[in-house]
């Protein structure tokens, strides 16, 4: 039985800074002690220790153990952290409100220590508190507490991991987020595709459609509550809008011809998309409140895969107006476009980073497909994965990690979901319910 995840959005997890510890300090990452720089293979992960949280026997202890494990799995999964096993610990943490013996943690080369405490409150909610100590700077650098329904314990783990990640890397976390994707089953010639959603760590996977009709390319709304996708249920491919709270879907406009390649604007008020009319594909934008459509491109070329800049002022898209599939940027109201991709091969599926600095893309050259990133002026192109088919990058909410899919060659070829750091580091297969394609990462959950 898969829990209904949408209730989480309405959940109020109280977060408050705890003013405990005489020597509480600000983040140490500015002094270089724990600053993370990833360059090639030179990187050394930050060493963490996380003793068992202090909790009464029973439900509190059981949940707190799982919460700690989720948080540590997130951090280790990022590739930026390594968790020192408890067997190596010298000091045993028994008092959550006492300062740790920093020397004991320095002695085993632990850069940062995480301690925690959990209680089941009289109202049935769980209260989880944690502190983060910099063992070499000898001080607390973070302390937070979370209240929630015990059923949402995984999200507490993700939020703890996000807080630790933010404090020690100086960047926003991305663990309390999820990924919508297309789950694939059946043989290559008769693939069954279903929309599915999971937490970013692969937990809580559930299906949003039943597989009767072909569905493609889901994309999250900026508020995490709605998903745009393509369905063949009315014959020609059309854009549908799925509401995670109500579990209802509606067709977004009912145009003659095919509508596809939808994405929300950063304010969530508009949907940019492609319409094909008499075989010609152009980019249009729909104002959601009025469902009014405005045309942004009009050329006999294919214009598709539009994606907004984070400030909403520009759109990156692909076009074959120059003879082959390449990436262009235009104003969000249309008009002249500037080509930015000039490397060897064809370039498509551009997606603007949530930080605004990079464009992720799919490239095909030399018989391979590559997922990569480039600056918004097309410079500094960097290939992150190259296989028979690597396609469809999506950004984690912090703009530091990407997910994409691969499809293997041959008549038994299958799709799989992958993630990689923007530097090309930490390439790994994502846990998912079977084969998956077309991943789209959500924003950080509220």
């Amino acid at each position, binding site marked *: 039985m898969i829990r209904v995840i949408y209730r989480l959005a309405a959940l109020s997890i109280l977060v408050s800074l705890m003013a405990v510890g005489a020597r509480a300090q600000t983040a140490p990452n500015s002094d270089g002690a724990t600053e993370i720089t990833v360059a090639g293979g030179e990187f050394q992960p930050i060493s963490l220790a996380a003793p068992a949280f202090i909790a009464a026997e029973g439900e509190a202890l059981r949940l707190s153990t799982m919460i700690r494990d989720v948080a540590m799995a997130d951090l280790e999964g990022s590739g930026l952290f390594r968790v020192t096993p408890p067997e190596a610990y010298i000091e045993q943490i028994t008092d959550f409100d006492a300062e740790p013996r920093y020397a004991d943690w320095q002695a085993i080369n632990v850069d940062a220590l995480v301690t925690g405490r959990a209680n089941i409150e009289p109202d049935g909610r769980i209260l989880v508190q944690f502190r983060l100590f910099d063992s070499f700077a000898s001080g607390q650098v973070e302390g937070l507490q979370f209240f929630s329904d015990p059923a949402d314990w995984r999200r507490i783990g993700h939020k703890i991991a996000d807080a630790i990640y933010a404090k020690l890397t100086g960047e926003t976390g991305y663990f309390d987020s999820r990924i919508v994707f297309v789950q694939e089953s059946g043989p290559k010639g008769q693939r069954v595709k279903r929309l599915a959603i999971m937490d970013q760590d692969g937990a809580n996977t559930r299906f949003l459609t039943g597989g009767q009709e072909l569905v493609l390319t889901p994309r999250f709304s900026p508020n995490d509550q709605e998903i745009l996708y393509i369905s063949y249920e009315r014959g020609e491919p059309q854009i549908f809008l799925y509401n995670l709270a109500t579990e209802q879907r509606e067709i977004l406009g009912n145009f003659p011809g095919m509508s596809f390649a939808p994405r929300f604007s950063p304010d969530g008020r508009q949907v940019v998309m492609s319409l094909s009319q008499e075989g010609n594909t152009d980019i249009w934008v729909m104002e959601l409140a009025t469902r009014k459509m405005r045309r942004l491109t009009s050329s006999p070329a294919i214009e598709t895969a539009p994606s907004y800049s984070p400030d909403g002022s520009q759109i990156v898209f692909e076009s074959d107006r120059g003879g082959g599939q390449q990436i262009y940027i235009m104003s969000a109201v249309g008009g002249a476009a500037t080509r930015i991709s000039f490397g060897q091969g064809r370039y498509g*599926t551009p997606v603007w980073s949530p930080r605004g600095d990079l464009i992720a893309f799919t490239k095909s050259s030399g018989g391979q497909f590559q997922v990569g990133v480039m600056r918004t002026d097309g410079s500094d192109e960097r290939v992150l994965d190259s296989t028979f088919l690597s396609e469809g990058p999506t950004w984690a909410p912090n703009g530091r990690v990407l997910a994409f899919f691969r499809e293997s060659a041959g*008549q038994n070829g299958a799709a799989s979901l992958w993630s990689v750091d923007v530097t090309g580091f930490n390439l790994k297969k994502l846990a998912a319910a079977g084969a998956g394609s077309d991943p789209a990462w959500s924003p950080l959950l509220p």
Partner: protein
Amino acid sequence: MPMKFNILIAAGAALVLAACSEDAPEAAAPGGPVSSASNIDPSSIQYFQQTVGDRVFFETDSSRLTGVGQQTLQRQAQWLAENPGVNGVIEGHADERGTREYNLALGARRAEAARSYLISQGVAAGRLNTISYGKERPESLCSAESCWTQNRRGVTVIAGAPTS
């Protein structure tokens, strides 16, 4: 709709098997009216698929009709003129060597190229619809040019005619 689709896939599979023995994919399409298929009702879907030829093939990343493709469409137009009670949906398909959304757009272009040609040959525009499947419905499953040539196709699917 899904049920109809399954039937079409099954019908198409037989054609592909026949085509795989040929070097040139276009050779799979019959070169002209075949008199030996005398047992098949000439107004049937089977006749349209096997004798008239229900599909045209395209070069990589192209929606230009080949000479052989134009001949196939001329036979289709003639058959449609002789069978005025039926309509056609032209499916546009792409091979797996393109990105998903681009291939949807490319499939739409290919379907429209076939539709426009049929209209130029006298078929009423109202009888012809199009749908793009991009790379979603390959018929030949290997990851080699011999299969990709089979998958870059426009297939005219006839509705309302006898199935045998």
